[in-house]
Structures are given as structure tokens and as C-alpha cells.
């Protein structure tokens, strides 16, 4: 089953690199909430850590290269790593730039 999903997803996946230290969440609602409070670093950090702790979000290092696809219903959301960690993580598209797989941070 995962192989089938992986094949289907591979057809629409591209590689993206995180421009900044960013995040991915279980739902786009959580992404929207974090985006709303991002301008207040202390509030953001407290809420983000809470969401990480409760298993709803993860941190993504600056420079990390991920597979992803833009959500058709909301172009501001990137669904990351749906093949490796389904159903993927929802992340703010504006934090990523599309790259070729080989670019991998030059590492």
C-alpha cells in the first residue's frame, strides 16, 4: 500500500529547501495559527513548543531539503514528506524555495 502511495505521490512531488527555521504540522489550521503569531517571537515559541510537545507539529531546520507538493485547496500550504511520513506535514509555502534534488544544501 505504501508503495502504491509512494508511486502516486512521486508523480507530483518536488524538492523544496527551507529558507528559515520553520515548521510542519498535522493540520493547516495549526499552520495558520502559528503564522498569525509569528511576529511575536515569545508567543510563537511558547505555542510552537506546546504544539511540538503534543505531537501536532515538528521543527524543520533551515536548509533542510524535503519532498513536497502544494496543496491544491490552499496554495499557501506545502504538504511535506507525504511518502516518507504520511499523511505528511503541512508547512507554510513561503518558507521554502523549490530546488533540484541534487542541490541538497550543497552538502
Amino acid at each position, binding site marked *: *500500500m*505504501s508503495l502504491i*502511495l*509512494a508511486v502516486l505521490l512521486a508523480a507530483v512531488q518536488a*524538492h523544496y529547501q527551507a529558507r528559515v*527555521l520553520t515548521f510542519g504540522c*498535522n*493540520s*493547516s*489550521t*495549526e499552520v495558520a495559527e502559528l503564522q498569525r503569531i509569528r511576529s511575536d517571537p515569545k508567543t510563537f515559541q511558547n505555542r510552537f*513548543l*506546546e504544539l*511540538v*510537545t*503534543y*505531537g*501536532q507539529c*515538528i*521543527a*524543520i*531546520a*533551515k*536548509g*533542510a*531539503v*524535503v*519532498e513536497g507538493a502544494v496543496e491544491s485547496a490552499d496554495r499557501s500550504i506545502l*504538504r511535506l*514528506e507525504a*511518502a*516518507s*511520513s*504520511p*499523511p*505528511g*506535514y*503541512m508547512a507554510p509555502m513561503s518558507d521554502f524555495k523549490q530546488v533540484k*534534488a541534487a542541490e*541538497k*544544501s550543497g*552538502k
Partner: protein
Amino acid sequence: MASLRRELPVTLLSGVLVAAAMLPARARAQDVTDVKPPKSNLVLKESGSFFVGGHPEHIDSAFGSGGEGSSMINQMYFQFQKPATGNDEYPIVFVHGCCLSSKTWETTPDGRMGWYEYFTRKGFDTYMGDQVGRARSGFNALEYNRVQAGVDPGTSNPRITIATDQFAWNVFRFGDFATKTPWPDERFPMQTVGVGPHSSLDFYKQVIPDLSTTVGTGSRPIDPGDVWPSASQMAKLARKLGGAILVGHSQSSSYPTRAALFDPTGVKGMIQLETGCFDNLTPAYIDILKKIPLLVMVGDHFSTPQPPESCITEMQQLKAAGGDMTFIALPDLGIQGNSHMFMQDNNNLQIADIIIDWIDKHVEKKH
């Protein structure tokens, strides 16, 4: 089934009898004098440890010690024990949350029996794993050395999560941090976080740096399950075991679902402690999850309504598809005062029994 859940008999079986099994749990506490010996011996037929997954990452001579080569990253450490007399349930696999390790499931900070031992005593083959990026599991240290060598700017350094005592009080819901006043009905052993006479800080010894931000920073591996690997490693283990019940807590609470979606073959049950719900499941994902029973359990003193919206959405979707999802807020059962760490609360074995009862009623048997 019920008869198998009594205390295991003190019987020496032929074959492998682990010497450590005959010892009380004295050696596993953070302060040995705190450990309360059990009333009966724990009799095992086997215990051990192993790794799942991981891949070699190329390390340039500028960043490695001892020259250019490869270094293993993202491997996940598991340890297990099997009772001499088992039950008819599938093995159970525990994975811990943020800033913690599989110590979570061992002797509680005040010296009582933890779930690792209790579930074994109840007849389960019991496994527990350290998340990738924590404790005995691997992580990608190359990111740090690149910054240290000046190749990458400091701003690209992965952030190490260092959980403070204030974090613990607020997120684990112990009470008011400023005044160090626990909730009146708080069930966590507060004497291990500095409350009351003769208190200690023993619980904080379990809290360790969390390197999970390094997860996903390795070179794109051949195996897609090695990108953010803890959940996929759980799926691989479940498959190798021929079936398992996966348990995630807190940071790992969503991993059982992710594992099932990665490869449902071995996932017989999903237990998610303190959230881990999704509201972005596609019909294809729901079609997989509807076949595996799911329990989500939360404690007391949340500042937000329970269940959260994402759990309500997921439950509606799964039930509409014929799935089996149970949400238990312990206060709804009349059990008040449980913290985020209810596997260590003063009623931890009562909570374990609720979970075992759910397994009995919802998860298929081995045979």
C-alpha cells in the same frame, strides 16, 4: 484473557531465563533508594535490544573524526522484554515524547513500577524505542560540525530543544509554575519536581536535549522512510514482529497513525496518548486507517476543550467510513487530576488497565 492478566507465576522455564528478570527493579531508578521493590518476581523468557533502520551518511574529512568515511544516522534503538507466560495479545511498542527517552516507561521518578514492567507482567511482549535524535538512537551531527567549521552560517544550526522546568510545569500541566503550586488534585509525583518537604528534582533527570530538528537533514536516502524516520521505523518493527500495537505519547502521539499509513501490514492497533490527531486525511488515508482500531487518550487540566477540533474531525471521518476510533478524556471517566505524564502519575497502573481493557475489546488477538 482475564486469567492471563494476573500476576505472572514465579516459575523458572526451560530455555532463556534472563538473570536480570529475577532482580527487583532496584537498578533502574534515578535514585536507587527511591525504588520500591515489587511484591513478586518478574519472570521473563527473553529480553534484548536492537536497532531499526538508519543509513550511512557520507562525512567529508573536514567534518569527521579520523578521516573521510560514512557515519550511521537515523537508526532507532529498541529494547524489549517478553514474559515467561504471555497473553494472546499482539506485542506492544511504546515510544516517548519530547525531550524525554524511553525512560518514560520505566520506573517512575518516585520509584513505582512503570508501564514497561507492568505491561510485561500483564503478559505483553513489551518493546520501547528511543525516538531518532534522542538517547541511544542516532541523529545527523554533520549539521553542527558544518556550522562549527564555518562552512554554514550559525543561523542554519538546528535548534536543540532544551526543555526547562517552566516548560514541564506548563506543558505537562503540573500547576502554577510561578508559585510552584500544583493543581489541588494533581496526580504527578510532585515531590520529584521540587514540591514539598524532602522533595527532589529527580523527574528532571529524565529530561534530555532533543535533537529532533536534525531529523530530515541527511542526504536524501534511498529508503523514503529514513527522512523523518521514527514513525516509519515503528511500522517496520510492527511488520517484522508479525503484528504489534503501537503507542505514541505527546510528541510521538501521531506516530502510530503515520506508521500505519507508511505500512499498515503489521499495525494491529494505534494508541495515541495526549493527542496526535489529523484533520487533513484524504479518502485514501481514511481507507487504510478505518481498518485499524485507534485510541486517543488525554489527561486533565487542559486549557483548551477536549477533544480538540482535529480529533473531532478525524473521529467523524473514520466513523463515517466504518472505522473504530475511541477518544478518552480521563475526567470523563471520573478520573481527575492526571497530568500529561499519566504513565508516571500516582494512578499510572489504573490508566494502564484502562488501555489494556481497550486493547482487549478492540484489537484482534494473535491467534
